[in-house]
């Protein structure tokens, strides 16, 4: 499975979100999930299984990928962990430390 984060520039907010998703994956004991960050303009349905964006880019991200997840905060680990867990389960990835 691949999780992508996207923001307008593809190097600030999205990078921060990717690092926080990596942290969540580690805490959840999930291995083998690929993560990356990019600018929203380059997102395609084939880019990743799930794309995480901040609430301000929810509209811009609609339709770019079949599975778009919107975060209210990019630094709230509770929200990120919850939404990452849901995404993993949607894509049939087992979550050991739920």
């Amino acid at each position, binding site marked *: 499975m691949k999780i992508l984060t996207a923001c307008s520039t593809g190097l600030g*907010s999205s990078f921060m979100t990717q690092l*926080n998703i990596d942290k969540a994956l580690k805490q959840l004991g999930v291995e083998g999930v690929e993560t990356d960050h990019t600018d929203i303009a380059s997102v395609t349905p084939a880019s990743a299984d799930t794309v995480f964006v901040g609430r301000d880019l929810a509209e*811009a991200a609609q339709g770019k990928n079949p599975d778009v997840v919107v975060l209210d905060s990019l*630094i709230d680990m509770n929200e990120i962990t919850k939404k990452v867990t849901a995404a993993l389960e949607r894509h049939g990835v087992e979550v050991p430390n739920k």
Partner: protein
Amino acid sequence: MLKEYFKDGAILFAPEVAGWSEAVDEVTAPLLKAGSITEGYVEAIKKSIASPGGTYIDLGGQVAMAHARPETGVNATSLSVLHVAKPFLLADDENHPITTMFCLAAKDANTHIELMQALATLLTDADKLKALGEATGAEDLRKILL
């Protein structure tokens, strides 16, 4: 960890600012002075914030990370921060009150991983985030950030 990226005088405190544009001017000033960024970078940040969806630099917890594309004027990867006691509205949007604005200057999309990792570790620490929100001067900020 973050220490090496903060330029001299790059940790700023102000009781309040007139608005988000002034906040950008203040937070970018130390990086301009150090030659880490150009005027073009400051303009690119302002243009980005004013654009539709430009409030995406609001990370949550009243913290924003002002930045733009490296090619708009970054000479050296560096960081600065402004904390204001009274929140200002990012892009004049009531949904985006901000008290802490970082300015991230990154040379390219990937080499600033150490800086981002350190910043992510800091901002996902609820205790540190709370302390940041309650800071009453630059000395408080230095204690939390360095």
